[in-house]
């Protein structure tokens, strides 16, 4: 299985690599458009600031490469946020794959349709740092293959100050204060995790091995 982690100078690419290694899968780290296009699956990692990250993708022509990918793609944290239309941090344009804007948790009230009393973090600390449960979007629990074997209430590790406001593509939601933000999303062949599966112990490992199973089944 040929899994490529996109190398665009962001923080957690080593951790993501280690996490796949612990599952017995070697990955390649690359910024080469041809290698990315020909991969069985692509991971867009991300720890950092939106502006520099977006600029790095664009400078290497990777924005167009990513939007054109047909194989399974997994965006992690900032890597998921970059899939959206717009990132408030650094006023950066996103890749426009996911609908919606990525807004600072404290400023949700002034963006979008939430009534102000619902949009406060109610004393919740920012950055949102630590373990929090994944909640199902509907009564059936988790049905997407990425979340196979994950039970609503299972906790995963978050470290972020911004979150996607639009819930249209959400597979799972997580609460911080009074805010309910999408913690797992999917549109077509693009999945995204706002949390860090590479740092979320057994639950995170399950998500990554589910991703590998999706790739295997497509082959």
């Amino acid at each position: 299985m040929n899994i490529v982690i996109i190398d665009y100078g962001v923080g957690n690419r080593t951790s993501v690599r280690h996490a796949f290694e612990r599952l017995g899968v070697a990955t390649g780290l690359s910024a080469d458009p041809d290698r990315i296009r020909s991969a069985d699956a692509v991971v867009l990692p991300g720890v950092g600031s939106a502006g520099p990250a977006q600029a790095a993708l664009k400078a290497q022509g990777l924005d167009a490469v990513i939007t054109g990918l047909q194989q399974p793609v997994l965006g992690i944290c900032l890597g998921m946020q970059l899939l959206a239309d717009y990132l408030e941090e650094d006023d950066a344009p996103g890749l426009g794959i996911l609908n919606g804007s990525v807004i600072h948790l404290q400023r949700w009230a002034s963006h979008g349709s939430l009534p102000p009393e619902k949009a406060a973090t109610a004393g919740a600390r920012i950055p949102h740092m630590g373990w929090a449960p994944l909640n199902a979007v509907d009564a059936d629990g988790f049905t997407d293959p990425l979340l196979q074997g994950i039970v609503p209430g299972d906790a995963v590790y978050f470290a972020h100050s911004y979150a996607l406001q639009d819930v249209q593509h959400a597979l799972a939601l997580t609460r911080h204060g009074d805010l309910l933000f999408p913690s797992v999303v999917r549109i077509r062949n693009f999945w995204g995790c706002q949390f860090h599966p590479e740092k979320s112990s057994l639950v995170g490992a399950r998500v990554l091995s589910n991703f590998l199973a999706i790739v295997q089944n497509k082959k």
Partner: protein
Amino acid sequence: MALKRIIPCLDVRDGRTVKGVQFSGMRDAGDPVELATRYAREGADELVLLDISAGAENRVARCELVERVAAALDIPFTVGGGVRSLEDAVAVLESGADKVAVNSAALRDPSLLGRIAARYGQQCVVLAVDARVDQTGSRNVYAAGASTPTNWSLERWVMQAEQEGAGEILYTAIDRDGTRSGFDLEGLQAVRLATNLPVIASGGAGTLQHFADALSLGQADAVLAASLFHFAEVSIQELRQFLRNQNIRTR
């Protein structure tokens, strides 16, 4: 809402885990990679690794250790100790640490916090702050391994650090460190009021109740301890169960 976190801390000197009392009198507590993986297996939520040998010449050895820990761990970990510059922070983060803790270097140059945040995001930047109560009853911040008093009060310094770009506060009460007399609850509340950042309580854990007090009365988001875990006097599972019985939600 983030669940409350339990964080074992490894103080590392020359590649071994050590633990002292009030910052001195070290005892050997084993191999850091072995301890780190044991804690992850036992359900630690996160890990902090403080390199207290940290001289400039130590940077390479530290990165090797960080790499070994990173390869083995499936939970987040923070590395601190002797992080003096943006270059040191980059080296630590590029070796696989999830967060970097800065202490004395931020006191010398507070803009260091913002420079790390600009590159890796605020959530990667932990301000480690050591303080003790002075004669007037206020908390004074100390630099250089709790040896040198500064002009900062605890409250003013954490406020400043938040503005500069810190994403989390690791507060150690110097006089409690290694004494097992309980966390500094008043200090924790003061930090909590001064900033909107998550707060990790450190220094003074001795009993299960101390942890519960720091999380409820002290309103900390996470509790950190070293020797209590290393010498297996308190297990993480036991602590988690104890907190659950007191309605404190953890993973």
